[in-house]
């Protein structure tokens, strides 16, 4: 586990809420309960199987393979009343962990009528009623502002709910990243920003578009803690995020976390690639977080090979059922463009994040 804290800008003397020392985080990571360890594993497997299925069904789906530890570690263990806004790459597992139905999610990826958006929105949209900020437009970065606003809503109502939002390394170059994080810092909003740093924006390596090396280094410019973590270590990610959530719940404001991982697949499922070296891909394939975590749990004696095989079978069956359900579902209803659902009526206000 590699965690390094960035408390940059110290010469300005203005870094607020500096993160607790490594020891606490190591302790946290080490003390993830056996049940949670297994749940993390199951969710990572589910993420892989589910996303692979979506990629097979939809060549324009965006593969999340290799990033499961980051995604699952980030969104596991939240309270149902917390609000999430997941990056467009691999959001379904985050939604599933909140209770979204797999068959409807897959239906969503196929634009079927059973999808949560009735085929209207991009496939990544999840059910709002589970306190999910939906992904409804394709412009990267904008959703950071919306998630920040959700955190404002939570702060405004009092209590200790938090928002967790993830986004890509490339997205951190959008002005909206800057404005949103600064706003959250100034208002000490209860929000955790997790950069799913997979090294690429489509064909561009991060080094081509980021001169600073570390996205966590940007935290210094907002006076908030910045943390860099091994995004292929699910427990490390989970510990770091939970620690940041703890600060947010306690009214200590936002944290910027960078989880370093790798996009093992193409940008989209049928991406021919060719813009990066096979050596690099192989090196990261070797560091695939899923077998790595399996080995770890095997070594810790939490699972054995037969249990692992059963787990995969169960998950595969679960996803197969979801796929079957989605495939059987009717296509989006062409008779219902929803002209009368463009504007909300009064009753709509009962909806939304609760």
């Amino acid at each position: 586990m590699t965690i390094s804290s960035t408390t940059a800008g110290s010469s300005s003397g203005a870094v607020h809420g500096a993160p607790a020392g490594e020891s606490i985080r190591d302790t946290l990571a080490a003390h993830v309960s056996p049940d949670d360890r297994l749940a993390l594993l199951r969710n990572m497997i589910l993420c892989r199987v589910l996303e692979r299925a979506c990629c097979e069904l939809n060549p324009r789906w965006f593969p999340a393979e290799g990033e499961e530890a980051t995604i699952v570690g980030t969104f596991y263990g939240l309270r149902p009343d917390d609000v999430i806004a997941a990056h467009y790459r691999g959001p379904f597992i985050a939604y599933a962990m909140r209770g979204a139905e797999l068959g409807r999610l897959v239906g969503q990826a196929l634009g079927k009528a059973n999808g949560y958006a009735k085929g209207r929105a991009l496939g990544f949209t999840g059910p709002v009623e589970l306190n999910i900020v939906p992904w409804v437009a394709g412009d990267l970065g904008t959703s950071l502002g919306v998630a920040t606003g959700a955190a404002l809503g939570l702060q405004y109502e009092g209590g200790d709910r938090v928002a967790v939002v993830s986004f890509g390394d490339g997205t951190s170059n959008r002005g909206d990243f800057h404005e949103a994080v600064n706003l959250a810092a100034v208002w000490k909003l209860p929000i955790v920003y997790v950069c799913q740093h997979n090294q690429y924006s489509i064909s561009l390596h991060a080094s081509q578009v980021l001169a600073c090396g570390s996205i966590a280094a940007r935290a210094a410019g907002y006076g908030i803690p910045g943390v860099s973590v091994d995004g292929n270590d699910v427990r490390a990610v989970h510990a770091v995020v939970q620690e940041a959530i703890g600060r947010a719940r306690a009214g200590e404001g936002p944290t910027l976390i960078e989880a370093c991982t790798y996009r093992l697949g193409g940008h989209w499922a049928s991406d021919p690639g060719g813009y990066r070296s096979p050596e690099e891909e192989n090196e990261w394939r070797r560091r695939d977080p899923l077998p790595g975590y399996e080995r770890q749990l095997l070594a810790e004696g939490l699972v054995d090979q037969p249990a692992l095989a059963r787990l995969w079978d169960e998950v595969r069956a679960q996803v197969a059922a979801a796929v079957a359900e989605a495939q059987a579902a009717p296509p989006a209803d062409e008779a219902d463009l929803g002209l009368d659902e463009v504007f909300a009526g009064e009753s709509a206000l009962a909806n939304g994040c609760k």
Partner: protein
Amino acid sequence: MPPRRLTFVEALVEGMRGEMRRDPDVFLMGQDVGVMGGAMGGSKGLYDEFGPRRVRETPISESAMVGAAVGAALTGKRPIVEVSFGEFLPTCMNQIVLQAANLHYMTAGKASVPMVLRTRVGDGPYRGHPQCFEAWFTHVPGLKVVMPSTPADGLGMMVAAIRDPNPVLFFEHMYLYHAIRGDVPDGDHATPLGKVFVRREGTDVTVAATGWMVHKALAAAELLGGEGVSVEVIDVACLAPLDFDTIAASIRKTSRLIVAHEAWKVGGLGAEIAAEAAERCFFDLDAPVVRVGAPQTPLPLAKPLRDRFLPGTHDILSAIRTVLTT
């Protein structure tokens, strides 16, 4: 209780104040809305009454501000976000057009975004930031767009906008701010959104106008009344969704239409209204539809240029004379 006379800006503030008293989920955010009382007094007194939690100062971060309103609205709050001047809307179009407008529809009705975005537009006493970009937003389904022209509507539409479960863009004309004073009803007064208003009845020609141009149209109507020409003036106080039925009914009566706004003529709201007339009222019209709007130059600063640039009463007068003589 007798009606009170307020300036336009006082009426706007009154509308916000009433709703903030009524509903604890309503809050205001923007630059300098607190101790300073807002640009041009646009939030005067609110900070004193409601304090920093409900009257929130923001950094110069228009996109994050509007995004914050969208997100807070998603969690059931009723934010009013202020973009100090409409000139700055190009810095936050993504939040307005791609998020606020889409969320309800795209979630199959599960999300809603009950927010108000207020902003100052048009030529004002200080001549700063006068851009009128409102037509852009009428092109985007999912947004309500309003531009009241009287203190009563300023108050009533503010109340309605805050209560509306949808994103409402509230354009406040700067000239009207301090220059116009009028009666406002007391209490719980909401002017329905989605309507245009006949401000003056007439039989010879219809002038549909927005904002300050409503007043210029009324002045033109007054002048022409003396010459025996009867002008009907419609205040297009709600630009989207557009209540064209009321305009069509007027055209059936007058057979002539003029559309007047301060924004550029090309591609402005007047194009939409004229096009609707050309489609739906073709056989009712006796004369070409004439649009009055700003000429195709960027908006100049110096007073003589600005005066020349701005469409005025005389432009409406000459448009009326044109359609009456063809």
